[in-house]
């Protein structure tokens, strides 16, 4: 099978060219990192553009209506025109807001969303930084996303915003625990937190089979981490206007939604890497001449469709039910999963398989 794909070829070519020009190793590393980051950014923005439309179309499908259908065939240019509109809108900053906190929050929300893409293996050899602590890095960086919501809620100086921000803290801190515990099972099976090792361990069997419980827990906790329905309590339009987003307008408001979709892609990418075999082809279909990054994107979009399906078919959960479910169901279940995985590994070793 052809192992080198287009993007890896491009990267190798660039590296060789830089070496030919006589750049020092430091400069080469920096330039390669910059190109990797720009590549990831383009990937994020392109996906956000597609996902906004996809979400609206999916919502329309579930609610038996047409959705956007005016601009371009089937309304495919809707997002582009929406972005233009948002860019040209006035940037309103209310008088009573805590200016620095209010402004920085909108940018800060984007930083963890971009940073997590450093450890996502998009295809064979296509990872910006194959860290030794790969998945732990994702967990650590993703945990800081809460702060931006809290800052937005606090800085807005508005009751509803603050309630939304506080809800977001309560929810994301609680659901981070089952999210991390669900990933522990996979790390136990692989014996490594390195993303490349986790993908390599799934060439034969995807971890969704031995770790189905963990996958379910991850999927549910993922909704809470993303603040998406049925767990979109921080936003909760019927109760608290739009939560932390209430006072934002124009491009600052758009940044929050850009970050939400970037996070959606990130969470689905991690789900793909940890449970769906990463960029490995579907077992039995490896002979097809499909590049590994296409397999990866296909799986990510499968996960995204699952997330959209649940968002538009479940009603919003009440906040106390949400906390009860997180602490009294998901955490015990994920702990049991770790225990069973540990016993299972020991039995396998004892039987000498």
């Amino acid at each position, binding site marked *: 099978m052809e192992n080198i794909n287009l993007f890896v070829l491009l990267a190798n070519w660039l590296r060789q060219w830089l070496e030919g020009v006589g750049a*020092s190793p430091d400069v080469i590393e920096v330039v390669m990192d910059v190109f990797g980051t720009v590549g990831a950014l383009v990937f994020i923005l392109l996906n956000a553009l597609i996902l906004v439309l996809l979400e609206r179309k999916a919502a329309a499908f579930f609610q038996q209506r047409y959705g956007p259908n005016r601009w371009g065939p089937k309304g495919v240019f809707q997002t582009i025109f929406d972005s233009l509109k948002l860019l040209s809108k006035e940037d309103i900053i209310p008088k009573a807001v805590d200016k620095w906190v209010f402004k920085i929050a909108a940018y800060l929300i984007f930083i963890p969303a971009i940073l997590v893409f450093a450890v996502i293996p998009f295809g064979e050899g296509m990872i910006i930084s194959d860290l030794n602590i790969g998945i732990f890095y994702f967990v650590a960086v993703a945990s800081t996303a809460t702060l931006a919501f809290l800052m937005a809620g606090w800085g807005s100086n508005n009751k509803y915003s603050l309630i939304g921000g506080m809800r977001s803290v309560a929810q994301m801190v609680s659901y981070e625990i089952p999210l991390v515990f669900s990933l522990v099972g996979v790390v136990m099976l692989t014996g490594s937190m390195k993303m490349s090792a986790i993908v390599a361990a799934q060439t034969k069997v995807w971890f969704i089979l031995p770790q189905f419980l963990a996958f379910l827990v991850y999927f549910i906790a993922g909704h809470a981490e993303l603040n998406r329905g049925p767990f979109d309590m921080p936003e909760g339009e019927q109760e608290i206007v739009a939560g932390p987003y209430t006072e934002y307008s124009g491009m600052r408001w758009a940044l929050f939604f850009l970050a939400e979709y970037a996070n959606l892609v990130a969470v689905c990418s991690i789900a793909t890497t940890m449970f769906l075999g990463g960029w490995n082809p579907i077992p039995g279909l490896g002979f097809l001449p499909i590049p590994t990054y296409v397999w990866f994107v296909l799986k990510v979009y499968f996960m995204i469709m699952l997330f959209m399906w649940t968002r538009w078919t479940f009603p919003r959960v009440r906040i106390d039910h949400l906390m009860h479910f997180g602490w009294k169901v998901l955490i015990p279940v994920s702990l049991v999963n770790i225990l069973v995985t540990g016993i299972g590994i020991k039995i396998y070793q004892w039987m000498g398989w």
Partner: protein
Amino acid sequence: MSDAVFTVAFYVFSAVTVLAALGVVLKKNLVHSALLLILAFVGVAGIYVLLQADFIAAVQILVYAGAVAILVAFGVMLTKRGDIRESNLANRQKWPALFVVAGVFAVIYALLGQTNWGPLAAAGPEDSVGILATLMLTDFVVPFETAAILLTVAMLGAIVIAKEVKNSK
């Protein structure tokens, strides 16, 4: 990574950490102080990365920087002042503060004198996580588990206090 990059990165992270820490003390708004604390923690995490302690750096972000969100929540809830803009004022305990700080610096200075600052004989381990995990569950298993029990007890205590146990009649 060459020495030049390392040096520049070290000074940038140090400056960020020190300035943010100063901000934590000097800012008058409690929420601003707490948010600057995150920046200080991130700066320290950057220095850990420079020292090739990747796992410790991630823990620093996850446990300290991430937990500031809760710190802010508590800070806001437990502050009694009507105006949040003057919630983190300096008080008059100048001399006790000087005494405590001098003590802390004396301890640090004593430790600095005992540390061997020469270059390490062997290169740092490639896989720090594996070594840490083995150490935690073999040589240091008692302190590790004790810390876990201590945290559980503290959490239970917090829940009991929050629930306001009523006297059974």
